């Protein structure tokens, strides 16, 4: 049976409904943005990465609902195939035989589930990473920095896996287009395919857009409520108490009052032991004041917090252990910033964290809160 000629003369049939098509191309856009900002992004594009992730989450939610309420070929039941069918399909492909399915062929259907599944895992791991490393989002209140760091590896591995899956997906489309003479790309735009199938068609189903949209609205609105209430909880190990005003008065007189979580107990001890030689100046204090600050700093040092800044700055540079800007983390994060920016009038010097990090005083340092002042580039 030559399917090639018969398709040309056959009447067109609506296979991919508008829901499937809009989902497909929106997902492509959202995943592209998420991948670009994830693989090649800077702190500037981090918000966009998060927005793309949220968009993917709602697209997936829609697709799952549509899998039960869309038209015939949108429904999951029309492209779930047993192992024997999948093996037969693979054997056919290897033998160069082409069996025409109107909807997803067995391997194509499996790819849909694989893509949806991996995307769901990327979203879940991403939320854990966001919660653990940046103490943002719905999981911040229960996720430790260590967990966030570990899951980040998984998030990244999954993202690379997704790129591989997309490659296979495109290879499948190319295979069908070349060997099966299927105009798949066009069908995903117009929704129509020649009404020819080598296998019996699944039981037709009517799309139920109202049901789908109501479900989508109910689930997304209630989930926003839950997510927002989770996200409003203070992050695990995040400073909530205001910084001691005496500390701010004494230490903030010459430089920004570095949040106590930025230094280990050992670092603060080292600083307070040599106030008379404080980075080239005499910053000595009356003993009572010095002792009070020592008590406060020891009780609020990096060891008492689970933020990224507390962890990364705790890894002091052995050659210059008291200087935040000497740490490897600081150097790595600022290596693209020209020296002139630090010396500019609005910044002044490398230790003026708050010149660009608007949440530095609270010890947070979120990538979204970085803004290099205009005048710094003059």
């Amino acid at each position: 049976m030559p399917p090639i000629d018969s398709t040309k003369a056959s009447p067109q049939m609506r296979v991919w409904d508008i829901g499937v098509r809009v989902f497909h191309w929106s997902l492509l856009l959202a995943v592209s943005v998420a991948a670009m900002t994830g693989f090649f992004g800077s702190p500037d594009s981090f918000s966009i990465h998060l927005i793309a992730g949220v968009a993917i989450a709602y697209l997936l939610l829609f697709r799952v609902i549509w899998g039960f309420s869309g038209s015939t070929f949108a429904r999951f039941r029309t492209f779930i195939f047993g192992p024997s069918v999948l093996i037969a399909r693979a054997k056919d492909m290897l033998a160069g035989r082409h069996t025409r399915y109107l909807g997803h062929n067995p391997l194509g259907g499996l790819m849909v589930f694989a893509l949806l599944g991996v995307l769901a895992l990327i979203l879940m791991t991403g939320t854990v990473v966001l919660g653990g490393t940046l103490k943002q989002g719905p999981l911040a209140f229960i996720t430790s920095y260590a967990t966030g760091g570990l899951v980040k590896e998984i998030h990244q591995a999954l993202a690379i896996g997704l790129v591989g899956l997309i490659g296979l997906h495109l290879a499948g489309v190319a295979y069908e287009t070349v060997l099966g003479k299927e105009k798949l790309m066009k069908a995903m735009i117009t929704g129509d395919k020649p009404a020819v199938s080598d296998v019996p068609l699944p039981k037709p189903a009517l799309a139920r857009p109202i049901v789908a949209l109501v479900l989508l609205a109910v689930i997304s609105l209630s989930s926003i409520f839950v997510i927002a209430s989770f996200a409003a909880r203070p992050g695990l190990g995040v400073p909530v108490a205001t910084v001691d005003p005496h500390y701010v008065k004494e230490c903030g007189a010459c430089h920004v009052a570095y949040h106590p979580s930025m230094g280990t107990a050992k670092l603060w001890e080292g600083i307070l032991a040599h106030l008379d030689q404080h980075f080239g100046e005499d910053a000595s204090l009356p003993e009572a004041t010095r002792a009070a600050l020592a008590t406060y700093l020891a009780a609020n040092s990096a060891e008492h917090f689970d933020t990224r800044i507390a962890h990364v700055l705790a890894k002091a540079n052995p050659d210059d252990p008291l200087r935040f800007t000497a740490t490897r983390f600081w150097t790595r994060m600022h290596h693209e910033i020209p020296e002139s920016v630090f010396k500019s009038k609005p910044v002044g010097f490398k230790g003026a964290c708050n010149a660009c990090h608007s949440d530095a005083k609270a010890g947070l340092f979120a990538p979204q809160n970085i803004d290099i002042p205009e005048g710094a580039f003059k």
Partner: protein
Amino acid sequence: MNMRIAAACVLAVIIPALAYAGAAQKPVLDAYAAQAKAEQAGFAGFSVERGKAFFLAKHDASAETPSCTTCHTNDPTKPGQTRAGKDVAPMAVSKTQDRFTDAEKVEKWFTRNCQSVVGRACTAQEKGDFITFMASL
């Protein structure tokens, strides 16, 4: 005459007088004067000119902070900036009225900055001259 009104009139005269540049600095200056008398026999009061010269002088105790002007700029009526980028309110009493009114604060900063800039503790006369200069602006 109502005693309260009288008291209010007296206060109305006294309060602006206290706010007048120099008056509020008197207790701190008097203390340094007493100290200066004890330190040197021929002490004959503080001098605006000596204070100015001291403020502008270059010392060689530190490469980073060779002079008061490093942070406070040549014009004490203008705000300065610490090496760590923090703004410092003008030193001139006419611009920052509560300058040199808190003896503890004054002593803390003279202790620190004399060590950093001059490389030694300042004498009571140097401190008094400095304040007198700042109060004259």
